[in-house]
């Protein structure tokens, strides 16, 4: 390393900012780790961002898309692929992967890839998230929570996570433990009041905290994949704008009842519903559309209207060979 030194702190703040503005985002983040004053200066610059995704799996990571530079932080939890158990864990080191991107064409092409190793700076995973997100001018973070052996508690989640736009909760263990169920509920309780888009895959819920509790949050969008024992009552309580339920066992008769209620003026917020799954019976349009006074407007596309004059289209696609049916409902005009 060169012996040259530069006393940057002796420069006026506006000059320091000018120097920082010529640096790449990961270099600015590195500078912010040197002291509280450095952090404060970097925060004042409000680093703009295109997208960000926080991944809380056994090997936590943050991916930041700055446009022409992608920066990914991977926290190394220890030897032999040691896994994260909670957000309070302190990693042994931080791997920072930087990719320079040529985004002048439709396809983003990586022109250069570099990896740096930083020390942990005595920060836990939660504190690292808080530090990085405090620097960025961004309000649409997406977070991915991996359920299965990782403990998530509400205070740590609320204290360290930024304002999230979308939360994805994924449970991969076949038989979730009590702790897994508790962690799932903690993630939901921590973010349901503020986040408007949830995606839940195999999420273990119990009676004290069910899909109905999620529905009461008045979400903008809810995607549920592989729900456990869903009931029509659950669907009726989902006061969301857009809803996707995949691999569910709702019958066409249930859906017919749901659409009849919509015709009577229920679910006024609903604009889109996509239900896809194995119905266990021979799919028949007659069952789905019975009593809806639907008008066929295209191949397997039907138009219905509710008591307030709002029109919607229902599209049913069935694949009799594998017994799967897809029903798509979309409001088309008010």
């Amino acid at each position, binding site marked *: 390393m060169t012996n040259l030194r530069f006393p940057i702190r002796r420069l006026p703040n506006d000059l320091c900012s000018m120097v920082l503005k010529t640096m790449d985002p990961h270099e600015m983040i590195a500078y912010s780790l040197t002291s*509280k004053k450095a952090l404060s200066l970097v925060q004042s610059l409000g680093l703009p961002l295109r997208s960000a995704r926080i991944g809380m799996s056994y090997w936590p990571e943050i991916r930041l898309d700055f446009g022409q530079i992608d920066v990914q932080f991977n926290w190394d939890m220890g030897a032999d692929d040691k896994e994260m158990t909670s957000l309070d864990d302190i990693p042994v080191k931080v791997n920072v992967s930087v990719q320079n991107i040529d985004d002048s064409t439709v396809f983003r092409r990586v022109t250069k890839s570099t990896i740096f190793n930083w020390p942990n700076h005595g920060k836990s995973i939660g504190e690292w998230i808080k530090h990085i997100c405090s620097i960025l001018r961004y309000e649409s973070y997406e977070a991915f929570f991996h359920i299965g052996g990782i403990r998530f508690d509400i205070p740590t989640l609320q204290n360290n996570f930024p304002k999230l736009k979308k939360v994805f909760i994924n449970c991969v263990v076949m038989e979730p433990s009590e702790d897994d169920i508790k962690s799932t509920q903690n993630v939901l309780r921590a973010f349901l009041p503020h986040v408007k888009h949830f995606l839940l895959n195999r999420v273990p819920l119990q009676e004290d905290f069910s899909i109905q509790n999620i529905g009461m949050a008045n979400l903008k969008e809810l995607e549920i994949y592989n729900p456990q024992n869903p009931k029509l009552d659950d669907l009726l309580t989902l006061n969301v704008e857009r809803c996707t339920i995949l691999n569910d066992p709702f019958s066409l008769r249930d859906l017919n009842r749901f659409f009849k209620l919509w015709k009577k003026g229920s679910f006024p917020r609903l604009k889109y519903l996509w239900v896809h799954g194995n119905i266990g019976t021979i799919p028949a349009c007659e069952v789905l559309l019975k009593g809806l006074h639907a008008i066929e407007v295209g191949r397997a596309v039907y138009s219905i209207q509710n008591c307030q004059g709002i029109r919607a289209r229902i599209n049913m696609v069935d694949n009799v060979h594998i017994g799967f049916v897809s029903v798509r409902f979309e409001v088309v005009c008010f």
Partner: protein
Amino acid sequence: MSSTEQGTSSAAPAEPTTAPESAAAPEVPESFYYVHGKDKVVHKVSAGALQHSALIHGMISNLGYTEEQAKANPFPFENIDGDILQMVVDWCNQHKGKPTPPEDTNLPKQKEKLFDLVLAVNYLEIKELLTYCCKQVAMMVKGKSPEEIREIWMIPTDAEDEAAEKEAKKRAGKEAAGETAAAAGDAK
């Protein structure tokens, strides 16, 4: 083009010598101005080169000096070291009337003087050179870890910052107490 000569006094600067202009001399005679730094060495610089500096350009516009007046009254920049001013003047001459390239290879090479150069360029409001200087400072830590950045940029730790702040407060308190005591003594 510029030339330098050891000035003996800022009020009556020695006659500077001028280096030959390029072969294709402009038809309209170019006006020249004179600047000196802390070392009193007077630099003769063309108005075209000085246009890079918003500060000097503003002074020229406001003062409306004739050639003789300009020679008799060089702009004094007592807060800028002579060698730093020389670097700045050289850069302005090299970039006179030319579009500034995105990567400048004519930057002063003495990195140990970069700090003083940044301050001088900032004071003289030479936007392009300041941008290049800032890039040079940033390049010093290219690809470095936070700890290496701390070392190269001489950044104190939070503990050192806190200690320095405490010390400064203590000193300020003592000075205030001293002033109060002196004022009380005067009153008596």
